[in-house]
């Protein structure tokens, strides 16, 4: 099992309610739905400059300059091993939890340095939720799965309401409202994945990161999750990693293509090749490597 799996709801290392360095200052009201504003003009949620990651000194990703805009879906695509998961974990400091992982470069989140020592990583993972490839509900009731995060984060008032809202937002409420006390493991794979999304939403995040959220799902569940991603952009910023090119083409506003470069020493290292509006990536990408990848001629 992925060692990083359950950290969306990991118990806080500081006491609940401890003020964190500015990361809690962004209120819900600040997140305006910005459907008609051109994506490049929307607020920059993440401004990554020269971001790289080493595992035990060995470089896996380098020099990523990427801006992620608010209220949009950004897809990360690229061949296996190019560092998509490594990169997406930089966005909520999940790499902190991986032994031997070291992040360099700068990640600004709403203009604040995400890696500032003052910043509370728990607050970060509350604001920036994550959903994984394999649905990973706890072996508890549906209700407790959703309520867990708010509980440990001290968001205990109106818990029933919070659970209901999160399940509604994740388009799962109608299917589970009569069985909230039943075990989450009795749900189908697609339902479990929406439950995990609801669990991430229950702590009122600003961003949802999803690493191959549909790769274990059938087409019907996949399209339910895709619809959900699109509907979430009115309130949230969504970043997904996907191997399904058509999925990126269907749901993403922006698409970033990562690939693997072989350095002089022969060491392989992930790089960002191109980022652009999705329609451009899939009709007329600027870079030959992107073209070769999206047309299935490489990778």
């Amino acid at each position: 099992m992925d060692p990083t799996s359950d950290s969306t709801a990991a118990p806080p290392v500081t006491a609940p309610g401890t003020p964190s360095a500015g990361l809690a200052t962004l209120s819900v009201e600040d997140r305006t739905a910005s459907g008609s504003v051109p994506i490049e003009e929307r607020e920059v949620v993440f401004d990554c400059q020269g971001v790289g990651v080493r595992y035990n000194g060995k470089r896996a990703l380098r020099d990523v300059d990427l801006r992620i805009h608010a209220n949009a879906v950004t897809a990360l695509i690229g061949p296996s091993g190019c560092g998509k998961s490594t990169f997406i974990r930089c966005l909520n400091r999940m790499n902190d939890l991986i032994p031997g992982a070291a992040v360099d470069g700068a990640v600004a989140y709403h203009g604040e340095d995400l890696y500032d020592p003052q910043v509370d990583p728990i607050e970060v993972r509350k604001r920036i939720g994550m959903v994984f490839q394999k649905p990973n509900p706890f072996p508890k009731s549906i209700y407790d799965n959703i309520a867990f995060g708010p509980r440990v984060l001290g968001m205990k008032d109106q818990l029933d309401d919070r659970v209901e809202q999160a399940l509604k937002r994740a388009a799962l409420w109608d299917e589970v409202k009569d069985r909230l006390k039943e075990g989450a493991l009795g749900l189908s794979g697609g339902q479990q994945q929406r439950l995990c999304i609801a669990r991430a939403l229950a702590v009122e995040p600003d961003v949802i990161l999803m690493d191959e959220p549909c790769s274990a799902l059938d087409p019907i569940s996949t399209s339910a999750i895709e619809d959900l991603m699109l509907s979430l952009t009115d309130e949230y910023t969504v970043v997904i990693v996907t191997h399904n090119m058509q999925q990126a083409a269907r749901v993403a506003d922006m698409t970033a293509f990562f690939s693997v470069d072989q350095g002089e020493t022969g060491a392989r290292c992930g790089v960002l090749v191109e980022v652009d509006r999705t329609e451009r990536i899939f009709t007329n990408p600027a870079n030959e490597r992107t073209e070769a990848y999206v047309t299935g001629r490489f990778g």
Partner: protein
Amino acid sequence: MREGFQEELDALSASVLEEGRVAAHAVSEATRALVDWSVDAFDATLAAEADLKRRYVDTEAHVETVLARQAPVASDLRTVLAVLHINRSLERAAHNAARVAHLATPPPRRALVEEAVITDALRAMGERGAEMLRTSVDAFDRRDPGADRLLAALDELVDRENEKIAETILSIDINDPELRQWASRMLFAGRWLERVGDHAVNVGERVTYMVTGEAPIVEHTG
């Protein structure tokens, strides 16, 4: 990688080249039928039109299958879309050729100078139109992004011949019913041949878009 897909794209491209050859042949034969009153050329035009119609239907069905099964993107998508549009333009060009052939009729031989001017202009338009079609599919074959400009320049020449026909017809004796009828048929023939040039220009523009992904498409209708 995706070898089957590449083979399908190659097959589509080969169809376009073959259609271009047939369309140009239809226009040449139609011109011969029109100005030389050749029955063989008339038959050859209609046979070419029918041949192209069959190819047109097959190519469109093949494009549909490729879109449904391969979900092409980027340059592959642009190639398939170009094939779809070019297929239509070539079919229309051959259809116009058939219209031209149907207008063939000997001149009444009364206004000799005017008849010669009109006939020469029609011959020039037809030959130019066939040449433009060959040029346009050749540009497709070579993935030549500059073909649209060359074809637009050639189209100017076709348009000029057509204007010459219209002006000449205005100068002939409209009280002679036989001459008037012939002239009005030639006026229409000029119009259909002029459209052949437009279709070749459309093909060139689709080629430019296919290669660069950038050029704005201004359809020349007809």
